[in-house]
């Protein structure tokens, strides 16, 4: 029973807070650059407005183009429900095997790429080619990093992997690097650019409009929230919702309400802190040259590999 409640609370909270997280990172960036910025709640209104707008779909597209927003949003919602973000031990947690999670991330990426290609526009193709280059470099890093976590935790399920161990320092670093690339943030991609020639993620969704665009934008806000919460939980797994009960002076107290409240507050705090750190990073560096991307991801890969080696040595 409790495990169902955990999943429901997590689902509602993460799905609800995602636009706010996106708005927050923009607001923080604006403040750091000396601008005022819009309210962090603006994305809610943006997505609502887009839902009401007319869709213009190129005649040269096929059914793939129309399926993409659903697949991309679907995979992201899956991650939001399955991963340990607000609480551990949710009813869907058994599905959070890291191989499954990486594969689901890959499905989302592949469909986004197909959507970019399907419109047959030059920019869609360009963005898709770049996304594939990045994806193919991101995936091994992701697998190697999570393998290190799995070895320490003794399980391949991410739900059981939370919690830092000193030997995982390097792996955690590579996890951050890979999350930045996966979310199309600095230094890999610039989510705020209007320069069509430099876009990666934005180029693939350039042909979308109206509700489909709202779905894709919401999916990328959701993915950002999910991955930053996951990274935060790797460091601070405490004060999350769980199925365990508190025993107080010999009495078993059903604490789901109280611990639920704490977990919700902690989640909001984590989102705020993570978005602040992301904004700080994005305000203090320039975007990397596209041809430096393989260097960035190679470094991420070797950090992940070094992390794995350290873990293995410690296990022996």
């Amino acid at each position, binding site marked *: 029973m409790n495990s169902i409640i955990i999943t429901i609370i997590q689902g509602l909270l993460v799905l609800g807070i995602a636009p706010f997280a996106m708005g927050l990172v923009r607001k923080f960036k*604006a403040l750091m650059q000396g601008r005022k910025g819009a309210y962090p709640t603006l994305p809610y209104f943006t997505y609502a407005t887009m839902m009401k707008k007319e869709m213009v779909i190129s005649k040269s597209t096929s059914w793939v183009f129309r399926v993409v927003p659903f697949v991309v949003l679907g995979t992201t919602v899956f991650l939001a429900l399955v991963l340990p973000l607000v609480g551990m031990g949710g009813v869907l947690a058994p599905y959070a095997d890291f191989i499954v999670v990486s594969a689901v991330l890959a499905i989302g990426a592949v469909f986004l790429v197909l959507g970019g290609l399907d419109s047959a526009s030059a920019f869609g*193709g360009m963005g898709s080619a770049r996304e594939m280059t990045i994806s193919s470099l991101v995936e091994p890093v992701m697998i190697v990093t999570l393998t290190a976590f799995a070895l320490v935790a003794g399980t391949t399920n991410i739900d059981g992997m939370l919690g830092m161990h000193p030997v995982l320092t390097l792996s955690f670093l590579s996890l951050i690097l890979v999350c930045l690339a996966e979310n199309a943030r*600095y230094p890999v991609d*610039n989510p705020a650019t209007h320069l069509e020639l430099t876009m990666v993620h934005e180029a693939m969704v350039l042909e979308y409009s109206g509700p489909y665009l709202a779905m894709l934008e919401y999916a990328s806000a959701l993915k950002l929230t999910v991955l930053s919460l996951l990274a935060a939980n790797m460091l601070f797994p405490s004060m999350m919702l769980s199925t365990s009960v508190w025993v107080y002076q010999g009495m078993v107290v059903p604490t789901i309400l109280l611990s639920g409240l704490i977990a919700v507050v902690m989640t909001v705090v984590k989102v705020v802190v993570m978005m602040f750190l992301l904004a700080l990073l994005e305000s203090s*560096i*320039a975007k*990397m040259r*596209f*041809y430096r991307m393989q260097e960035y991801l190679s470094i991420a890969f070797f950090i992940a590999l070094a992390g794995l080696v350290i873990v293995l040595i410690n296990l022996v």
Partner: protein
Amino acid sequence: MITHEALSALLGSDVHVQGNELRASVKKERFTALMTELVQAQGLSLSLVFGTDDRKSTKTFGVHAVLALPETHEWLTISAELPEADPRYESLTKTVMAAHWYERFMMDQFGIVAEGHPDNRRLVHHENVPEATFPLRKDFAWDTKMDHAEMPYPMHHVEGEGIYEIPVGPIHAGIIEPGHFRFNVAGERIITLEGKLFFTHKGVEKLLEDKTPEEALPLIERVSGDASASHALAYCQAVETLAEASIPERAQYLRALYTELERMTMHIHDLANMGGMGTGYTLLAAQGFRIKERLMRLSDRVLGNRFWRGGIVLGGIKKDLTEEQLNDVLKTAKEAYEEMTEIVEFALHSSGLRERLETTGVLTKDVAIAYGGLGLPARASGVDYDVRRDHPYAIYNELPLEIPLKRHGDVLSRFKMRIMELHVTMDLIKAIMKQIPSGSVHSHMKITDGSALGAVESWRGQILTYVAIENGKITRCFPRDPSFCNWALFGEIGPGNIVPDFPLCNKSLNLSYSGTDL
């Protein structure tokens, strides 16, 4: 350096001197050979080529080429007459690359054919303009309604495995002027890059005809909004040269002040736009645009508009500045300059930013010279030419003017060049404030017939304006923006770079679409 004697020997006896301009007419058969000799052997640089329709008086079309003589601060104009029935001459582009767009321009606008031009496609006219439409001929009415045609306008095309084409524009994702770019790329690497511009044709040259010089000035000021003051000054100088007007000294100082303030505004904009928007180093963009805004508001306080427009008029300056206003100008300019230099210095410590700028979009000196590249991009590649020093106007020969120079020609050089020029501009503004005399700022002048050139070093580069007046009305006026010469540089800067770096190259030149396409 070429002496007057050497020139006379080359040109024969018919060199006619008017002010700082030497003129010679040659037979059309000799035109190309003579120009080739002057450019290739004597090392003069081609500054302008333009056509005229003189069929009414002499039953000919005129082709005129202007060369700069920086040592003597003079201009040399070589003209040739082409018969009305068969306006052809041997193409100059075959030997003098810098003439390539001018000659295509004349083919489109006058029907003057440069025989053997290596690239005889259309330039100004797009597919929809019918054949044999020559808008700048006198018998073409400005309000002619043209039929819709489907003429070919082929673009360069590369074939091979893994090579594909990216068409970009003319409508862009950002709010910029329209221009179409065609990339042929292998992966991300650019193989060829070609622009198709001229989407903003307004017919300015045609509209200027039959206007009085006073009526024409507002049009000239709006040719390119970011260089209003410089365009107005170049035009006014041409008309004033004809009238042999003497401009009060205070007005000369204020003219220099306005153009320097325009330079400061745009250099700050460009530093923010290149470093900030081009690379995603957002701090520089946000702060730079804020500082630029201070200068635009200063323009609003001083001139009543945000674009340094309306200050410079024929005969001097429209309205004198009070002591209070001058202090405001100095204070605001100083603050903007100090803030910007501080932020740029801070930004240059970012290795990520420098990494994006270094070695990107290299313009070699040879290319800059061959294409007749002008202004800041040329100086960043080692071409030592600046109108303020080489053809002094306004009051520049009494001001502490230093011309910075860089060699590497990459985006970082152009970025640093702007910082260096910002220092010079600040020194100039301070000197102007110190030296400015009191007195009147406007003198009455009588419009005189004839033709003359006016040159100004705008922030972007040399503006050269040709004006011909007959019976007090303009018969031909060509305000040549430096963008016209610099656009073709992209074909050389782009290849070898990767596609995502092109916006950065583009911003580092910051050319005007509107100023190119009058």
